[in-house]
């Protein structure tokens, strides 16, 4: 659990973060959105003390983060940034091993962890471990960047626009990968983004910042249904609202009994994907299969339309 309490930061006369309080529950993904200059990156960097706060308190699992030296704190928190920040003179394996080496793990344990992470991120160790960052594609570099951040098994992972430099197709794959990783390790993830789609698709909760103030901190559904201020409303975008509402719910949540013929859709797909499939095929309902490929029911157009309406 991360407790942020009345935290402020100013540079000279400019207030960057203005008295922000919020609690991030364990094992959640929280996305921080806002326009550039809203203070979202500064807020993130105060959690691992890359930026020193002026006032307030930040507690990680009850312990104030100023109780230990900054560099030790940062070794215990994962950190991934836009443009990956890989060390260009180190191989992929050495990059991933950075924090475990700083922590003094023995080499066998490090090698095993590097292998595990490379496999997890679909990079064959035999092929990629000894490559250098410049020999990888943008998407691969980004995956190595996240793998490096997770190497020392941190409880908390901070991400600053990690997918900002990726093109749209690789970006959506990267999001899916991140969700899979999150399901597997249960890491608490705090991610800064300026992309509302990304915030809605990934966040259990979304924090909306503007000019250093926290405008709203709530679930995606809440933010879409009841934006706290006109600015939050405009960030969400009126025309996009119903689709965003559909994009963070899963087919598994709305599946109803009944058997149908035809191409089935995965129960892990978003309602938005299901709607697209229905519109494209011109049907009223689709069969749904689960992870084992077994058909477990169906999803209907009426249900989807119901979910796209403004929640009461």
């Amino acid at each position, binding site marked *: 659990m991360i407790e942020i309490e009345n935290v402020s930061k100013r540079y000279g006369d400019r207030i960057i973060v203005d008295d922000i309080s919020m609690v991030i529950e364990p094992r959640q993904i929280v996305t921080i959105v806002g326009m550039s200059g809203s203070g979202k990156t500064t807020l993130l960097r105060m959690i691992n003390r890359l930026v020193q706060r002026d006032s307030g308190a930040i507690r990680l699992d009850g312990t104030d983060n100023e109780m230990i030296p900054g*560099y030790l704190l940062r070794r215990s928190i994962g*950190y991934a*940034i836009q443009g990956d920040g890989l*060390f*260009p*003179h180190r191989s992929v394996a050495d990059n991933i091993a950075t*924090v475990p080496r*700083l922590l003094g793990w023995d080499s066998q344990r490090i090698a095993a962890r590097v292998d595990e992470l490379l496999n997890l991120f679909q990079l064959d160790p035999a092929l990629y471990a000894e490559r250098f960052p*410049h020999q*990888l594609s943008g998407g691969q570099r980004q995956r190595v960047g996240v793998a490096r951040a997770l190497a020392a098994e941190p409880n908390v992972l901070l991400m600053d626009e990690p997918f900002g430099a990726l093109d749209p197709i690789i970006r959506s794959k990267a999001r899916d990968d991140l969700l899979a990783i999150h399901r597997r390790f249960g890491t608490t993830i705090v991610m800064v983004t300026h992309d509302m789609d990304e915030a809605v698709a990934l966040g259990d909760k979304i924090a909306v910042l503007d000019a250093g103030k926290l405008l709203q901190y709530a679930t995606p559904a809440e933010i879409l249904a009841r934006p706290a201020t006109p600015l939050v409303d405009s960030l969400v975008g009126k025309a996009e609202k119903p689709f965003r509402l559909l994009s963070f719910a899963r087919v598994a949540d709305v599946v109803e009994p009944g058997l149908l013929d035809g191409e089935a859709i995965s129960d892990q797909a978003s309602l938005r994907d299901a709607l697209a499939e229905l519109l494209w095929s011109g049907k009223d309902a689709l069969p749904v299969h689960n992870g084992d490929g077994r058909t477990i029911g169906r999803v209907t157009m009426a249900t989807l339309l119901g979910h796209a309406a403004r929640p009461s």
Partner: protein
Amino acid sequence: MAALAGLMQRRDAMPRLRVDKLGVLLAMLAAYALAAAPFVTFRANRIVPGDGVSLWDALPLGWAVIGAIVIIAGALVALIRTPPHLRLTAGFVVLVCVFLLAGMAGGTLIPEGDKLARISPASGFWLFVLAFALLATDGLSRLALRPLLRVTLLALVLAVVVGALALGAWDKLSIMSEYRNRADSFWAEGAMHLKLAFGSMAAAVVVGVPLGLLCHRVQPARNAILTALNTIQTIPSMAMFGLMIAPLGWIAVNVPGASALGIRGIGAAPAFIALFLYSLLPVVANTVAGLAGVSLVVRDAARGMGMTWVQKLVRVELPLAFPVMLTGIRIVLVQNIGLVTIAALIGGGGYGVFVFQGIGQMAMDLVLLGAIPTVVLAFCAAIVLDALIEAAWVPTAQEDES
């Protein structure tokens, strides 16, 4: 008409011979040297003015013809667009040929039993060397060989030259007479030359890298230090060596033990210090530039991973700045090897001793005995360090994508 058309068709069928722009210049140089410039100079004794002797008069006809054929063939290779390895080989072969012919001319021109007559390479010889060394370099740079291969090639060429000299290929030439008269001091001054050049460079690295770090971290210090070093760099080298005499002389007299360490107003100590001062700017400036070139994202990542600032410096910033720092060291080394020559003026030793002796005695071959090894040393240092810099270069993702 039909014959003409047939001829044109034939010409189209043949691979087109195209003229190389640099090659035109090189071929013209070689042609002029062959037709009009004296190949060697003949002097009745060491200091009288000499007479130019053409290639045809300097050698037996057979050898002169062979030499001319090799040179013309080399010039054609230069003139026409040819593959790089052919250019490199042709340049090298002609150089070896010209080198051997010059040595041979010594044997032919000096009358039997004459101990005073001197033969030296003349402008024609040097023009051949210039033209075909450029041809070889042109081929070499177009081949874009790997660093290790380039250094190996350099070692090979040096071995050939040293081997030929040891076998006596140039024994009849004046420059080798000068060498034989002072063989011991040639090697001693050579050792001194290297000691001064490398020693002052090492001292500049030991002092300059920490200074560069300081400049990198403390903005006000950076301006002060770089301005001071820039000012030092503007002092002419002659003046700098002169300026050292007074303070070091004072130290030698007044500081106990200083003169026992070899510190005197003249000699190697002031030369060393002057070279050291000149070396500081390239080392410091390149350290600063190298560190400044490390991307902000990489630095942020290093800190965000939990590195202390020393770990960040040693594991990330210095390795990434290293190639740029090496570029500074290359500048220093090549610059120092040249500058040491002037140190001879204040008794610092080195190959400059022969240069200044030669100027004093109007004996140009003695000047060459000092100048040629200096040029060769600087050239070798440049090639070896360029290879090192290339080997140490860390490619970034951006470079690869562009």
